[in-house]
C-alpha cells in the first residue's frame, strides 16, 4: 500500500515513501489515503477503490494505425472531413468507432485500418 493525495475523487499524487519522511509537514498531511500499489497518478478513487481511466484514442493513435498512403492523406488534410475528425479527438471507444466509420465512409481509410486502430 502507498499513501496518496486525493483531490475531487482523483489521485493527484502518490508518495514513493512514507510522506512524513519525504515532505514538509504542511504537505505530508495531504497524503492521507492508503491506495493499492497498482494505483497511479490520475486514477479515479471511488468508494475506496481505484478506477482506471477509460482508454482514449488520439490523433497519434489514428495515424499509427494507417497505411503510408492513408498517412499522407491524414497529414495533408486531403479532405475537409479529416480536419473535422482531428478536432473531435481524443475520444473514448464508442465515439472513436463512430469517427472511424466516418473516415471509412469518405474513403480516407479502409475498413481494415479502422479495425486495426480500434484494436
Amino acid at each position, binding site marked *: 500500500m502507498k499513501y496518496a493525495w486525493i483531490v475531487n475523487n482523483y489521485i493527484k499524487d502518490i508518495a514513493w515513501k512514507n510522506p512524513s519522511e*519525504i515532505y514538509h509537514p504542511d504537505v505530508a498531511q495531504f497524503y492521507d489515503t492508503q491506495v493499492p500499489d497498482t494505483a497511479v497518478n*490520475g486514477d479515479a478513487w471511488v468508494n475506496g477503490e481505484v478506477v482506471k481511466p477509460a482508454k482514449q484514442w488520439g490523433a497519434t493513435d489514428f495515424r499509427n494505425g494507417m497505411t503510408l498512403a492513408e498517412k499522407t492523406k491524414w497529414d495533408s488534410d486531403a479532405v475537409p472531413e479529416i480536419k473535422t475528425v482531428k478536432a473531435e479527438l481524443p475520444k473514448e471507444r464508442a465515439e472513436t468507432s463512430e469517427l472511424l466509420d466516418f473516415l471509412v465512409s469518405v474513403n480516407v481509410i479502409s475498413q481494415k485500418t479502422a479495425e486495426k486502430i480500434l484494436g
Partner: protein
Amino acid sequence: MSNLQAIQNFPVNPISGTYGSGKVQLFSASGTFTRPTGVTNVRARCWGGGGGNGGTGTSGGGGGGFAIKEIIGVTATVTVTVGAAGGSSSFGSYVSATGGGSGTAGAGGVGSGGDYNSTGGASVQANCGGGAASIWGNGGGGRGASGVPGASGMAALAVDGIPGGAGLYGAGSFYGNSSFLNIGSPVQPAWNSIDFIGTGGGSSVGANGQNGGGGGSVASPTAGGYGGYPGGGGFVGAPGLVIVEY
C-alpha cells in the same frame, strides 16, 4: 538534461547570490542527497510538477509551486523527491513544493517550509496552462483563448515585485520565452543562472511552454500543450525539479 548541468558553471544569481562554495546538485528524478565532506549547510530549491489535463477535454493545468530554504546543520543524507506532473517535489521534510492542479481552473501548486515560497499560476481558462512559480514570484495564470493575455502573477510579488509573468504567446516571461507557437517537443532553454529557472509565464492556446511557462493545448493532444520544464502546467504538465547548493 545537459542544460541543467551547464548552470553549475554559472552560479551567479541576481536575487539569491552564490551559496557556499557555489557547487550545485540537481535532481530531475527522486533520489538521495548525500552531504559532502566538510559541508554542514545547504540551500535547497523545489519546483512542484505542473498540472496536466486531468481528462477534461483540452484543459491545461496549474503551474507548480516553488520554495527555497537554507538548511543549517543538514542531516548526512536527505531523501529528495521530484514530482511528476501534478506531483510534489521535496528536499526531505525540510522544504516542499506541491504540483499544480489538473484541468481548467486547476490551481497552482504552493511552496511550504521555505524561507520564501511562491504559488504557481492557475489554469484560468480552457486550453491554457499556468506558469510555474519561481524566486521572482508567483507564476502567471494561463488564459487567452480569445487573445486575452494571461493573468499576471498573483498577489505575492517577490523581492523586486516582479511577478511570474502574464502570458500571451510568451509575453511576461522574464527569461527566455514563456511559451512559443510551435508544434512538437518542448524546448529547454540554456539556463545560466539558477534564479532564472522556471520564470516562464502563463500560456495561451496552442503553445508549448518553455522554462516553466504554461502550455496551452488545442483540440488534439499531439498539437502543443506541453508545460515548460520545470513545473509548467499544460495539457501535459512538466515534471518538477530540486536543486541543492552547498
